[in-house]
């Protein structure tokens, strides 16, 4: 197992007390696997990604659990050691490609800098490798692009460069946080293909975070669904999308306009996304759930294996299985 997160909880402390943003998250990624996390804003998907790299702010506290990467607990090692891992063993791609690049540094130099840092090569060789890295992410005229500044490039090109940066080492694990959200659909398709290709070629594991079910279905072998800082369902992508067990996953899929059947009215999920400051005692989705009963509101469900390798945290799901 390349990465194993066990029972990780994260709290943010503010002036008005602390908020639990992640609650007992467990996940694992094996070598060469693409795992997807899907959820709405505030569900804790980005915090999960950042907690792996220990990039959370000072007000965040990872209170328990462990994150094993190749056997070492990332939560226990010193800052120096985690810094050595960032970029080298674990690459990260952020949502907004403009802010992830240095605005006044030429592309080639930015890439060469990363390569110099992670591999023992001369400056000249690093630049050559940088041009090669641009070629690997299918940039036409890599020499020309290497001599440009980020503002001279389109969003799709910039995201390719951010991916090239993340893959420069090359890492064992690539974390991509909404890598295509800021891009047009046509460009999104190209970037998704690129990620898939790099995963195939280098056997890099990928953790992809998105709110888009379509991205999940195209890319991921396994999927986790998050709501209110908890994992509510996990399983093979096929299983989760075709045979969802948690009412939240079902509702989310029903809320998407269906291209095949546009006349079908959308089934909106009533209410708003949960406010993490007021975490209920029972199931966090109970307030918006159409099948929740009294028991759901007072007792918290645990993630149980409802089908082989398919987990869900729902009292009703468990009952269905027992009946």
């Amino acid at each position: 197992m390349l990465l194993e997160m066990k029972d990780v909880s994260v709290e943010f402390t503010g002036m008005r007390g602390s908020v639990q943003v992640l609650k007992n998250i467990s996940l694992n990624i094996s070598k060469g696997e693409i795992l997807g996390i899907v959820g709405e804003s505030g569900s804790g998907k980005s915090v999960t990604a950042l907690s792996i790299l220990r990039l959370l702010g000072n007000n965040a506290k990872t209170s328990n659990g462990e994150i094993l990467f190749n056997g070492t607990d990332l939560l226990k090692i010193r800052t120096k050691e985690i810094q050595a891992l960032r970029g080298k063993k674990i690459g990260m791609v952020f949502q907004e490609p403009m802010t992830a690049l240095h605005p006044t540094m030429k592309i080639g130099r930015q890439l060469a800098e990363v390569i110099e840092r992670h591999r023992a090569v001369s400056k000249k060789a690093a630049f050559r490798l940088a041009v090669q890295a641009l070629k690997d992410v299918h940039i036409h005229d890599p020499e020309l692009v290497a001599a440009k500044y980020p503002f001279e490039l389109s969003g799709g090109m910039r995201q390719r460069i951010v991916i090239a940066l993340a893959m420069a080492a090359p890492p064992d694990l690539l974390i991509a946080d909404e890598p295509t959200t800021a891009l047009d659909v046509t460009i999104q398709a190209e970037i998704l293909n690129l990620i898939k290709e790099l995963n195939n070629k280098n056997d890099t594991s990928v953790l992809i975070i998105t709110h888009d079910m379509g991205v999940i279905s195209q890319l991921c072998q396994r999927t986790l669904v998050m709501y209110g800082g908890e994992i509510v369902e996990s399983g093979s992508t096929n299983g989760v999308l075709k045979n969802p067990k948690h009412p939240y996953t079902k509702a989310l899929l029903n809320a998407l306009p269906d291209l095949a059947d546009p006349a079908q009215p959308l089934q909106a999920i009533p209410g708003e996304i949960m406010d993490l400051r007021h975490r209920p005692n029972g199931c966090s989705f109970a307030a918006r759930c159409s099948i929740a009963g009294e028991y759901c509101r007072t007792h918290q469900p645990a993630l149980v294996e409802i089908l082989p390798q398919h987990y869900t945290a729902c009292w009703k799901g468990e009952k269905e299985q027992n009946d």
Partner: protein
Amino acid sequence: MIDIHQVRKTFKTGAMKIDAVKDTNLSIQQGETVGLVGESGSGKSTLGKMLSGLETPTDGMIAYKGIELWKKKKFKRLRPGEIQTVFQDPQSSLDPRMRVKDIILEPLLALNSKERKEKGKMERLIYLMKRVGLKEDHMNRYPHEFSGGQRQRIAIARALITDPQFMILDEPTSALDISVQAQVLNLLKELKREKNLTYIFISHNMSVIRYMCDRVAVMYKGKIVEIGPVQSIFQNPKHPYTKILLSSLPSLFEETKEKINFSHPPSLSSESACVFYQKCPLRQEICLKEPCYQPASENHTFSCHLQ
């Protein structure tokens, strides 16, 4: 209801001139929802802004119910509040220092005092707030106290207070989460039916367009490259750009469809080439001349040589 004829909008920055919208023709019937779809920078929002008076067209004519909206670079509105807009980002389109009540009633300031009194009645305000899914006691709160979906509801209520007949919805759900997007889309659909509204729905999300619209216009680099009834466009796309757009939609259940990709820019180019020439996978020599519109089926036209 709306007639757009040969409209062009040119932006100038220094020596550079960019046609954000070029030679666009579009007419919209009463009660219709017309979708505008295209990538960022394709001119879809600019076209919407020219309809609401926020951008001046460089050339061409826009008529609303037979009366020209733009005369000598001046916007002539029939009646204030007849055309209303809902913007993409409800965070920045609501004044953070105004209470919800004042935000919703503000458009009435453009009306004469008699109409203002009539439309600004407390019962009407409360009815409207309830209709869009807000509560009566939300009235005295500030925008920051609401979630994204609720803010968009406030923006919709503000647009409806003047009793518009025509609404420009500029990516109204792009900033919202999926579960909330469904609520807002359904609300917009219901309101349209109730009040017999006409919509222009601007979006880059094809499945939302499919759900909301009767007709759709696909824009690329400021030009409408294909227009027709949604069903016809989705089932039988003619223009290569529309085909690429539809093939790149990630679908939930289908196994990977055959994907069409953009082509790399050619060495040869010309000023009068087809707008899609630079990236078209099918381009030929003939495409260096701008194509005219040709019919594919009833009401469905596209602009491409190669069909």
